[in-house]
């Protein structure tokens, strides 16, 4: 940028000096706000709304409840498979030597 000025440079500098005084035309605020509002609506989907409603405790509670339910169902299915498929499970069934009354 440190180069000697030439006549064109000086007239450009003068032009810039005058151009700096130019002010922008008025912005249509209503149209701007409408655009921003519609963008906000698009941005916040139902999932965002749900995430906003659930705070971290709610999310943790939901996660814990889901995990417990999965564990219960998985446990029941595992036991069911174990009790019916594996022959040695009869040890836990009715009249078995280990638990005469049965486990369940």
């Amino acid at each position, binding site marked *: 940028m440190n*180069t000697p000025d030439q006549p*064109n440079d000086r007239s450009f500098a003068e032009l810039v000096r005058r151009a700096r005084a*130019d*002010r922008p035309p008025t*912005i249509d605020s209503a*149209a701007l706000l409408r655009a921003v509002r519609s*963008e906000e609506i698009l941005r916040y989907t139902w999932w965002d709304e749900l995430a906003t409603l659930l705070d971290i405790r709610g999310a943790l509670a939901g996660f814990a409840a889901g995990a417990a339910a999965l564990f219960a169902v998985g446990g029941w299915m595992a036991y069911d498979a174990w009790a019916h498929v594996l022959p040695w499970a009869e040890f836990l069934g009715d009249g078995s030597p280990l638990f005469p009354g049965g486990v369940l």
Partner: protein
Amino acid sequence: MEALVLRHQDEVARLLWRFARNHADLQDLVQEVFLRMVRGLASWRADKPFLHWLRRITVNTGRDYCRRQTVRRRWTVEPTPAADDAPPPPEAVDRGLDPAARTAANEVKELLATLPPDDCAVLTLHHLEGWELKDIARQFSWSVTATKLRAWRARARLRALLESRPLS
């Protein structure tokens, strides 16, 4: 959100007006800045000044505009000066508060628009906004040395342009 828009729209418009060629483009650019703001609000870090972050979006939007103008100029045919029945350009209708300043600004913008987009952005911010090169470097995440070099080359291109096309 609306309060943010209303609070900063004048500052954003003032800065973008240095880039925009006409009122319609300015309106679009201001809208683009605030839409980018809404989309990127999650990435704003609360420990940084909001205005700096918004100014960066604004300046990048201005640079993108320079880029689009370059592409548009490359792919469109310049109108012939003999077309008397063509409607006057918006700039000619909208004389602004200070017609002399508006005319000068249009002439400067027209000149800068013929430069490569980054050169256009650097010289617009430096000449029309009066920004220091280190501020421009920070806004575009360039090094100060690279920005100085870019500005020097841009100025050389502009000088060559001025020699081939004297100012009115």
